[in-house]
């Protein structure tokens, strides 16, 4: 029997495979395709203090080995989440983790405090790295000072597992990770999307209504892998790796680079049952390499 379990602070995951925020809805959208209770966890859509409509269409552009999105945190706000969505999803047999966003520190505090009271939400992911909103988002996550300040403020009000999602749009991501670790983060997840752009040459127009958007998919994987490797050497807290994971081999590379767990994002759009295959593929790899537990390969790069 191979042990796939991993721990993110006090959070015991049945396996290291989770789904990335904004790519798996609230889990409900995928129940026709897979048993979502087989997942280590589900990071639900970015949640803000109040209702947001997000950015205008078009919000998406296909790119070589990836895509750009500029959704801009469309969601119905934390109160709606608590009253209407939480009751539907709270009894799924996996960890439901809420991605928390805001324009101001006060908004982050409001959302995190309200989520702290929900029994079945064992952790939050602080999104200081969304590239698609005018205020807040990535602005907090691209300076050590502001990243540290918002993490400290949330640590005061949020008592459960606090994961901070880092932006790759920085010069030195390891410094950012060290800063949020010192400010009280229990874990860091990386990478959010890379700021990119697409242009329609025939029409001479930007493809996205916002001009720029966040790049995801296999195109970003080498960058994500490098950053996970750098960050996991710089901090003691567990690292959650994501960025372009499409297969079990991709996920294993992140674990070898030092990630304790991974998130699968854009791949869910192409194969809504991909996580089932990734979990099975990790188990198969461990068996082939004669490991008895997944923890044996975490940071196991020779």
């Amino acid at each position, binding site marked *: 029997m191979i042990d796939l379990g991993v721990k993110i602070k006090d959070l015991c995951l049945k396996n290291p495979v989770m789904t990335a925020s904004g790519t798996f809805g609230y889990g409900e959208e995928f129940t026709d395709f897979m048993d979502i209770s087989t997942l280590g966890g589900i990071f639900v859509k970015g949640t803000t203090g109040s209702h947001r409509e997000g950015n205008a269409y078009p919000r998406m552009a296909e790119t070589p080995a990836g895509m750009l999105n500029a959704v801009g945190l469309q969601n119905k706000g934390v109160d709606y989440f608590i009253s209407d969505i939480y009751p539907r999803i709270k009894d799924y047999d996996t960890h439901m983790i809420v991605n928390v966003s805001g324009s101001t520190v006060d908004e982050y505090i409001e959302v995190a405090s309200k989520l702290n009271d929900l029994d079945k939400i064992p952790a939050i992911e602080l999104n200081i790295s969304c590239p698609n909103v005018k205020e807040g988002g990535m602005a907090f996550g691209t300076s050590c000072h502001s990243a540290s300040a918002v993490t400290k403020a949330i640590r005061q009000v949020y008592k459960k597992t606090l994961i901070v999602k880092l932006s790759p749009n920085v010069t030195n991501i390891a410094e950012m990770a060290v800063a949020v670790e010192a400010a009280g983060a229990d874990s860091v997840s990386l990478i959010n999307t890379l700021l990119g752009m697409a242009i329609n040459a025939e029409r001479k127009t930007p493809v996205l209504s916002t001009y720029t958007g966040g790049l995801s998919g296999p195109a970003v994987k080498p960058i994500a892998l490098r950053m996970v490797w750098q960050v996991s050497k710089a901090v003691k807290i567990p690292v959650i790796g994501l960025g372009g994971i499409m297969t079990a081999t991709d996920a294993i590379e992140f674990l070898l680079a030092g990630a304790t767990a991974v998130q699968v994002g854009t791949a869910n*759009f192409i194969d809504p049952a991909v996580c089932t295959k990734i979990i099975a593929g990790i188990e198969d790899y461990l068996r082939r390499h004669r490991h008895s537990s997944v923890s044996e390969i975490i940071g196991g790069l020779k």
Partner: protein
Amino acid sequence: MKKYIHDMLVVGNQQINHNYFLLELKAPEKLPEILPGQFVQMEVKGNKNVFLRRPISVHDVNYKENTIKFLIQKLGEGTNTLSHAQCGETVNIVYPLGNSFSIPTEDNILLVGGGCGVAPLLYLARFLKAKGFKVSTLIGGRSKEDILEVHEYKKHSTVYITTQDGSLGEKGLVTNHSILKPEKCEFSMIYTCGPEPMMRVLSKFAFNHGKKCEVSLENMMACGIGACLCCVVETRHGNKCTCTEGPIFNPKELAGWIY
């Protein structure tokens, strides 16, 4: 409705002309119920430049043979690659997706398709005729090469045709066809799919003359199942996903179409 992910067998791929092809796929098991107006997310294999699935509307369904037909325009690398699919190969699809055209409450129905926008209207015509409705189909295109599958539409409806160059049917825009002259137009409901400017004109026409109308949108999407929130359309009640709350909308709900 439960959604499925299936490897479908290619049992037909007919090149209609240099712009369009007719792909027929057979399910590995009994087809689930598919409603007129629904679509599938089709995987494109073998082209490194194509990353996402392609949303393709259902053209016709054969429950006896467990096959679905797709009328597809070659618009880019994804559809070009699909046009080369060979019989015996498999194509993976996620389906059936989206809402559907509603069942009309009054008789005398007009379907209006512009170019490849006629694709979802064949299955709708078959469906409505089977329910006993009187159905007419108005098909428009730039030229006769864009007027597709007329013999199929004739099985279920009275067919009218316009081309911009006059090479087939009445000359001019589909929205100017003589059956749409207000004094002559006795249809109670218009269903339309095609270029957005065409659908906007038809929506206003229907509204101004007290007829019901539904339009089928073709927004770009990534997932097709309501997860990515990329395909939104602005409605009077905020942004809605075309993939789950559409692709069929009452134009009165779409911001700026009527109100």
